[in-house]
Every structure is written in structure tokens, then in C-alpha cells.
């Protein structure tokens, strides 16, 4: 971009009109910042007053915002969160790979691939329909019930449940991306002698993934909190650790602690998502202008 703006030399000094305009815009900017700050302060104060002035506020503060309980439960919950984080990374990677594979299988043409296609399609229908909690219960409680040799632990089974559910969502996102690439791109690639697979791999998929990276990341944000549902299967993650602490102290503060930690975990992911979305939007408008 900067290379296209080598204007410095040829620009005449600003005229009085231009300077007056710039001053006006500056004044407007200062004004809007002030207005925003003031209205935020007013709204914040009102909210605070409304909450702390509520008749039950003191009891709520005691049972949800007790600093001592928070300090005491924090290490255990952090330990649990570390499990959530590792689980998130593994599940996200597996779900992305599996989702992409399923999306690819759904695009295969030809009668030979009919069963594969049908299977992939029913997979996305089934797992997008079933609540994640049920999948977790079925995996974590049902599979060990089969008493098969080498059944993995509940952590792996619960993780598998998350991967199964999320890969079906991600597969649909990928598929939408694949279908959004204009057919002329496929024609151009095939006309160069690229095979169907090479066309997919080098031409269609890279463009599709770029286009759908915002919704993909959005699903990963959703996943980062849903990994907390693994606690239903038994492993001691942040949610389960908070639950145990609540049971011991008869105080709900650990839930608030866990909630705050989940938000902290989400912030970087959400920020990346927003950034990628913004970039994608810019690129799209650049493409449109070209």
C-alpha cells in the first residue's frame, strides 16, 4: 500500500479551507470521545447503584463474591483449566481435520462414492441435531458399558464426543466455503490439466478456508466453553473443580471464578476471530473493487 502513495512532493500546502475542515473534524472527534466517556460513566453508575441497592445484594455478595473462598479455590480451578486448555487444543485440531475430511467426502462425485457421500451427509445431520450433552453421556457412560478390551478413559471418550459434535458443524462451514468458490476457478484449474484432487487441494480448498476462517474461529470460541461440559463425564476440569469447591464451602464463588477464567481464556481467541473477520471483510471489498 505505502508504495502506491508517493505523493509527498507534489502536494500543495493545505489551503485555509482544508485547514478549517481538518480543525472541524478534530473538534468533532474530541466531542464524540467526551460524549462516549460521559454516557459510559452514567450507565455504569446507574447499573452499580441498581445492583448494590437491591434488597438481596448483601447475601448475594457473600455467597457469590467471597474473596477468601475465591483465593482458596483458585489453584484447583486453575489446575482444572489447564486440562480444559489442553483438551481444547486437541479437540479443536481433531475437529478441524475431521470436519474438513467430511466436507471433502461430501463433494465427491460419481456413483462409486455414493455410500461415502451418504454416510458423510447423515453424519452431519445426526451430530448437528443431537445435543452435545447427550453425546457426552452416550460416549462416556455407554461405551465403557460395552466392556470392550482397551476402552479409553472417560477423558478421551468425552473429548471424542466434543470432536464428533463439532466436526459436524465445521464440516458444514467448510462445505459452504468450498461451494462459494466460483466454478470458473475449477474450470481454470482443470483446463491446466490438474486432476480433481489437485484442483481441490491447490485451488479450491485454500480459497475456501480463507473465506470461512471467521465462522470457523467462531465455532472454536463456542467449543472453548463447551469443553467445560466434559465435567459431566467425570474428569476434574475447571467446572468440576469449581463444583467440588462449592460442595466443600457451601459458597458459589468458585463458579464465578471459573466463569471469569473461561472469559479470560476466550478473550485472545475472540480477539483473533475479530481480527481475521475484519481482514477477510477488507479483502472481500478489495476483491469487489478490482
Amino acid at each position, binding site marked *: 500500500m505505502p508504495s502506491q502513495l508517493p505523493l509527498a512532493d507534489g502536494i500543495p500546502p493545505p489551503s485555509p479551507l482544508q485547514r478549517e475542515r481538518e480543525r472541524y473534524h478534530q473538534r468533532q472527534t474530541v466531542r464524540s470521545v467526551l460524549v462516549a466517556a460521559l454516557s459510559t460513566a452514567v450507565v455504569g453508575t446507574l447499573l452499580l447503584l441498581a445492583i448494590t441497592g437491591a434488597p438481596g445484594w448483601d447475601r448475594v455478595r457473600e455467597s457469590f463474591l467471597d474473596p477468601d473462598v475465591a483465593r482458596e479455590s483458585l489453584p484447583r480451578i486453575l489446575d482444572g483449566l489447564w486440562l480444559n486448555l489442553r483438551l481444547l487444543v486437541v479437540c479443536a485440531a481433531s475437529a478441524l481435520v475431521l470436519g474438513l475430511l467430511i466436507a471433502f467426502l461430501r463433494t465427491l462425485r460419481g456413483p462409486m462414492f455414493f455410500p461415502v457421500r451418504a454416510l458423510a451427509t447423515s453424519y452431519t445431520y445426526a451430530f448437528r441435531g443431537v445435543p452435545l450433552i447427550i453425546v457426552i453421556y452416550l460416549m462416556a457412560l455407554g461405551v465403557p458399558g460395552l466392556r470392550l478390551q482397551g476402552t479409553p478413559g472417560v477423558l478421551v471418550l468425552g473429548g471424542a464426543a466434543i470432536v464428533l459434535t463439532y466436526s459436524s458443524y465445521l464440516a458444514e462451514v467448510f462445505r459452504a466455503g468450498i461451494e462459494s468458490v466460483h466454478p470458473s476457478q475449477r474450470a481454470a484449474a*482443470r*483446463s*491446466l*490439466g*490438474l486432476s480433481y484432487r489437485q484442483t481441490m487441494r491447490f485451488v479450491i480448498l*485454500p*480459497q475456501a478456508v480463507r473465506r470461512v476462517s471467521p465462522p470457523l474461529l467462531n465455532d472454536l470460541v463456542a467449543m472453548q466453553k463447551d469443553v467445560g461440559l466434559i465435567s459431566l463425564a467425570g474428569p476434574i476440569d475447571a467446572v468440576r473443580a469449581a463444583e467440588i469447591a462449592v460442595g466443600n464451602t457451601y459458597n458459589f464463588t468458585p463458579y464465578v471464578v471459573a466463569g471469569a477464567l473461561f472469559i479470560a481464556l476466550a478473550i485472545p481467541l475472540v480477539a483473533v476471530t475479530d481480527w481475521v473477520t475484519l481482514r477477510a471483510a477488507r479483502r472481500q471489498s478489495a476483491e469487489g473493487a*478490482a
Partner: protein
Amino acid sequence: MAAPTADSASPADSTDPTNPADPTRPVLDCRGVWKTFGKGRDRTPVLRGIDLAVHEHEVVVLIGASGSGKSTLLRCVNLLERVDDGTIHLDGDDITDPRVNADAVRQRIGIVFQAFNLFPHLTVLDNITLAPRRVHRRARAEAEQAALDLLDRVGLAGKAREYPDRLSGGQQQRAAIVRALVNSPRLMLFDEVTSALDPELVGEVLALVSDLKGDGMTMVIATHEMGFARRVADRVCFLDRGVILEQGRPEQVLDNPAEPRTRQFLQRLLDTEPA
């Protein structure tokens, strides 16, 4: 190749398109090509028995009204569309045989589209070297050198590392032509390669196509640019509703058309063309 079949679909002439000993055997030989789109009642014929032979070093220009089937014919030759009836031979190979390896055939034919169709996620250089590297398994350095040589020839050496959206339309189209050329095709197809360009960018692309004619490239060109057709064509074919109604030397077809419909088409072009 399959054994030569009885030449039933050939009203053009009775020579055997697969005979390698025949010195006049064309590079491209379309015989009785039919193509319909749609199903049932909506079925509309777009190509209705096209006979067209293109010999080595020959430049054939297709003209005709919008919808007459020029693009469809080019796409059939490149196997982007499947023909219904008739045969197309490329250097004696029947490429309409359903058992033929379409990818291998397409490697022998270069096509350039109206909308460039460069890959937006790849640089110009990567656009051009994609097929040499992935299809022909050339080493990266070798493929890039070949690409850079060609880019230099068309005046785009400085743009090799740019993404397509940073190039002007004319530059993009020249890059697309290089992308097709780098595979050393036997035959080049051009489908209205200047229609999407601003008038001042048309010239640079047409000059490049003229250069290719100088190199002896065998080409089939669909275009609305009659001046260009006149300059570059060895033969002009007028397509009308899916048949080649008239063909011959450019001055003959363009200045002295025998068919009333050809005359009508050219007249309409003259009327709409800005003075």
C-alpha cells in the same frame, strides 16, 4: 488409441483423422459435434453438428452473435463440457472417447477465458508454475525460470511476485495467457479474452496474441473484435445458432459475406460500434 471406427459421423470428408502418416492431418478435427443443454422439454441444442478442422500453425477465428455457441465449442474442445454426438480429434487422438484421460488431454491444450480466472490466493508466479510443478512434476527452480522467461517476454517480469488483484485487467489477462503457454500446449483456445477489458488495455493483449501467431502457435479464437479478427485470422468462421454458417479468408467473410445472416450480424456490429 481405440481402433479407428467407421467414419459415420463425418459429413466433412472421408479422410481418417487418426492416420499419423497423413501430412495434412489437422491438429484439431471436430466432426459433427452436437451439444445440448438442459433436460426433457427444456433441452436446447447449442452446437448442432459442428465440423471444424484446424491445421498446424493455423489461426481460426470464431465470430457470431452472443449465444451462438462459441464458448461452448471451445469448452467442448477442452473437455470442460462433454459433447453429445460427433467426435473431436486432437493430433489424431479421439478425445471424445469417454475412456480418454481428460487431464492428459487438457495438458495439451491451453485455454484463456474472458474473466482471466487467475487464482486469487496465489502470486502471478505461483499461478503460472502450479501446473508445471504439480502436474508435470518439474523442480521449482526450473519451473520458475521458465515462467519468468515468459513473463519477461510479455513485459510482466516485475509483477511475478504480486497477487492478481494488484494487476490491471490487461496485465492479469497477459498473466493468464502465460499460465496457459507455460505448459507448451499444442493448441491454444482464446475465449473473448478482451471483452472484460477497458478499451485502452485491449491492445496489449491483442498484441500478445499476434506475437503467438508469429511464433506459429495453432489457435482458435472467439472474439467480437472484428479488426483483430481481420489481422490475425487465417480463417474466419461465422457461427450461427450452433452451426458454422460460413467460413473463409477474413476479407472474404468480413467484407464479402455470402450468407445474409452473416451480413446482418456484421451490419449490426457496425451500427452499435462507437464511431
